């Protein structure tokens, strides 16, 4: 077989796309994050038409298409709906987390939608679907979803 690339010098161009972003959270998400940062309270919004409670809080109920005017304080405890364990280090894992890292889909008491967050203070082999967990708030809070450090088992 002849080498199809014989005598060819392929030119390859390395580049990077640099687009800085600043996303406005909007009034609804801002209220959630400010309350989380300043009061360690987790808020949801409630649809007055179908009574569904949303976390993350939505301004409009996507099913009823009416504005969610009511705010609800959610418990800092909830139930694990599903989970997974990362045993290899990869880019999405924050620097201050060591593998194995456990992600859980957690439905807080009072909410109708689950949130994705970290489970910690528990060995991966002890995590079960249906187990009860509680939010641990970060010492330094900056108004992001990681103002909740992780969820730990309810003792």
């Amino acid at each position, binding site marked *: 077989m002849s080498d199809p690339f014989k005598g060819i010098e392929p*030119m390859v*161009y390395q*580049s990077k*796309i*640099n*687009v*800085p*972003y*600043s*996303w*406005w*959270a*909007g*009034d*609804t*998400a801002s209220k959630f994050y400010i309350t989380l940062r300043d009061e360690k309270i987790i808020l949801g919004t409630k649809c007055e038409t179908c009574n569904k409670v949303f976390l993350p809080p*939505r*301004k*409009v109920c*996507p*099913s009823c*298409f009416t504005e969610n005017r009511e705010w609800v304080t959610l418990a800092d405890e909830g139930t694990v709906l599903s989970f997974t364990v990362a045993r290899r280090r990869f880019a999405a894992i924050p620097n201050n987390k060591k593998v194995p890292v456990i992600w859980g889909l957690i439905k807080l008491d009072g909410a109708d939608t689950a949130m994705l967050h970290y489970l910690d203070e528990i060995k991966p082999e002890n995590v079960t679907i249906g187990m009860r967990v509680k939010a641990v708030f970060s010492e330094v809070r900056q108004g992001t979803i990681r103002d909740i450090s992780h969820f730990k088992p309810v003792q």
Partner: protein
Amino acid sequence: MSKRVAIVGTGQTFHKSHRPDVNGQEIINEAVMRALEDADLKIKEIDAIVIGNMDHFEGINYVDCWSVDGSGGMMKPIIKLTTGGTTGCTVAIGGYHLVGSGMFDRVMIIGWEKNSESDTTGAITTAFDPVWDRLVFAGAISGLAAEAQAYMARYGATDRDGARVSVRDRKHATHNPHAHLRKEVSLEDVLASPMLADPIHLLDVCPRSDGACAVIMASEDVAEKICPKPDWIWATATRHSYSYLGDADYGRLTSMREGSQELWKKTGIKEPRKELDVIELYQPYSFGGLIWIEDMGIVGPGEAPQYIWDGNTDMGGELPINPSGGVIATNPIGATGLIRCAEAAMQVMGKAEGRQVPDVNFAFSSGFGGCWWTDMILHGRKKPE
């Protein structure tokens, strides 16, 4: 087309330089709610959704999925179309195809942008060829400036002629409560504003805006039940011509010439200057308002400056252009082309309030993209035959 198609409702936000009070989904929702209200429809009555914005502008890839909270796309057929600056007109043409095919009776069409969330030039650069053009590309304005220079050299036009177009659009914008910039300027103001790329001054070009627009299209089977006097789509045309920066005929917009010729042929229009009643032109800079109406065949090559100086395109003139204030006053890019479509529809439906042109029979709206692309729509009061 197996079904005739009409616009039965429109909605848009009050466009601003930035909207910190809402995220992308929420700004989309404002336009969608207003369009539903205008058509007196419920979201349940919408059969499908077409949505579009600029790639990379908000850094969200699957806008069609991500936006369902705002668009009403929950458990509905939804598709994203994006074609750069022409996106707003492309989503309208895509909606027209969906309804015209007979497969959907009522389609919600959405264009939106939060220009304030990213670096426009950084994002636009990604539209250009990485091996050939990107390393020597200097942003959107430089290409427009090269077009203006070539036109001026060919026909003896001046920067005063360009400035006159900007004065017109900015004056018109004062009558549009939705416009982002609503301040009248003088010729001297335009010419004294900072030079960005010769011959383009700051006041010759569009701003960056946050905003959204929604348009509802319906098939002939239901349109007149929803809206007694809808805006009928007579024809559309699309020309995307560019591969490399140097391919274009600088000083002429070939895509506009070929697209509009198709439009006039499809609809039997012989003299667009006499038969059109109003134009909403996607004109991001003043000189485009000279060059491109020549390519449309409104006037002959080199004749636009005199035609515009004579007041023909002002409100009350023979053929008003951009009663809304156009792109120079408002530019949430992914929405911009759809705002042209919505404004043209409002003119036909008699809903344009303080910027209404009397007795509109035919209106023209267009989209433009930085790579010399053009798409366009002919709107009419009568149902097409």
